[in-house]
């Protein structure tokens, strides 16, 4: 009897996983069947239009690339520096403990709140306007906890013998970190950065909140340009009642998912190479 119960329970648990995966399958199928036929070079190269069948994602795609690149450029140095402090310098200090607690909490603050911070601080107070810079700064703050966390993990994998070897040659702490520890941790750091950016690339709410526009008749040409991004374009299309625009939304989702998957593939590739190197 209890044995049958056990089996039943195991099946029920397994079933939840099956249901979750089936839902994922349905999602992918839904989007593919709605949007795949709409994908074409023209769709990538055309700009937004009132006519659904002439509209494309060019400006949004360019905006996404600008914003994500700048987000990475901002989040990488700051996140790595913060992680180095917490992992190599601040261990045991009360300030470091407080900062750690704070980062853990920030990681769970809703992204739309970051949008309000960006609106109040970057767009208004610092006068950046609704620029690529304001958007990237907002997303960089959002990505920082992930970058810091993964960098710390990467730093922890560097064996202490390497640090000792460097110290024994008369290297200072910073020389040791810069010349030996950081290069060894780099693949792990980059993997973490890419994963953080692949989360940021799908963020919609904070960029809408800082006032990124849904229709932009040009691609950004500097960090002070106004911009739109793929997720906002998707949101814009999905909010329209016409079916044709929903089809465009599905196609744009496919573009976004391909971007996302390629970023993840790069991350896996880097991590894989790193692991193989580590075993030499």
């Amino acid at each position, binding site marked *: 009897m*209890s*044995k049958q*119960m*056990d089996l039943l329970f*195991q099946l*029920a*648990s*397994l079933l*939840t*996983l099956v*249901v*979750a995966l089936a839902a*994922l399958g*349905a*999602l992918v199928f*839904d*989007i593919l069947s709605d949007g795949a036929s709409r994908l074409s070079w023209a769709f990538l190269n055309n700009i937004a239009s009132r006519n659904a069948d002439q509209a494309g994602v060019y400006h949004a795609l360019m905006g996404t690339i600008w914003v994500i690149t700048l987000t990475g450029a901002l989040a990488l140095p*700051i*996140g790595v*520096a*913060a992680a*180095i*402090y917490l992992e190599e310098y*601040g261990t045991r200090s009360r300030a470091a403990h*407080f*900062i750690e607690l*704070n980062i*853990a*909490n*920030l990681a*769970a*603050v*809703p*992204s*739309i*709140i970051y949008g*309000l*911070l960006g*609106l*109040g601080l970057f767009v208004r107070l610092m006068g950046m306007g609704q620029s690529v810079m304001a958007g990237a700064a907002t997303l960089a*703050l959002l990505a*920082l*906890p992930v970058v*810091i966390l993964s960098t710390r993990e990467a730093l922890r994998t560097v064996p202490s013998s390497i640090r000792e070897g460097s110290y024994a040659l008369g290297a*200072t*702490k*910073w020389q040791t970190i810069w010349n030996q520890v950081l290069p060894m941790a780099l693949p792990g750091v980059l993997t973490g950065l890419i994963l953080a950016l692949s989360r940021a690339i*799908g963020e*919609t*709410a904070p960029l*809408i*909140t*800082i006032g990124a526009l*849904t229709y932009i008749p040009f691609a950004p040409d500097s960090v002070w340009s106004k911009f739109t991004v793929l997720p906002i374009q*998707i*949101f814009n299309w*999905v*909010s329209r009642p016409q079916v044709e625009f*929903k089809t465009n939304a599905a196609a744009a989702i496919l573009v976004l*998912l391909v971007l996302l998957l390629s970023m993840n593939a790069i991350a896996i590739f880097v991590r894989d190479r790193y692991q193989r190197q580590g075993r030499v």
Partner: protein
Amino acid sequence: MSTRTLEWIIERLLFLCAALSVLTTAGIIAVLAFETYEFLHEVPVLEFLTGTEWTPLFANQRFGVLPLVVGTMLVSSIAMVVALPMGLLAAIYLSEYAPSGFRRIIKPVLEILAGVPTVVYGYFALTFVTPLLQQFLPSLSGFNALSPGLVMGLMILPLVSSLSEDAMRAVPRGLREGSYALGATRMQTALKVVVPAAFSGITAAFILAVSRAIGETMIVAIAAGQQPRLTANPFVPIETMTAYIVQVSLGDTPQGTIEYRTIFAVGMLLFLMTFGLNLVSTWLRQRFREEYA
């Protein structure tokens, strides 16, 4: 410059970068507090927190936030009905039953589920789940709380399962072996020994999931509607706190107006709710870690 001075400067610079996170929190609180303070000059706090009508964008302005809060709670509750039991069962399966090869395949797939942009889930809720549900529930309107709630539950499920699984795997083997030695089945061991032992860790995961649901924006902005309504009926259009912020941000509401300030006041409320939940979750997780350190 001497080496020592240089090293000292570098350490200060690194510290500043680390301290930026504290400044971020301070910045969030400062920005929200400033505009909320201005807002509360014009709207009494009691009216804001207990009023049952929310119409800041209409001529007849009312600033009772309850409809938004209740809308948020409604969608979040539906999401939790999906995510908590399913997430926990999935975690039990992965931690107590699954062969390690199966785990290694299934975990990355669950991570994909967590990595899908929320705007995509919004699309899925609006164009797939809602029409599907309407076939069984003809009274379901095109915008509703049910469909985004279910999809949100799906999105949050990996968070619950992965954090709960971590907590369960941290339970010492000895406890399990003691239970098996008394003739308990795997189910009895999982439910009566492992889950209770991992209780604070699992609770922490649940609380974090609630916090995530409350702050989730795009799914509800797309599929739940934009009608602030004080109701527990999951079949009709409603509006959540987050969706309201998006709605105002999409229009051009001039800075300094009361409409503009409402989003910060709502944001403040949202921040306090999620930050409070996060603190409790962090505290529980730390307690759990101490138990089995």
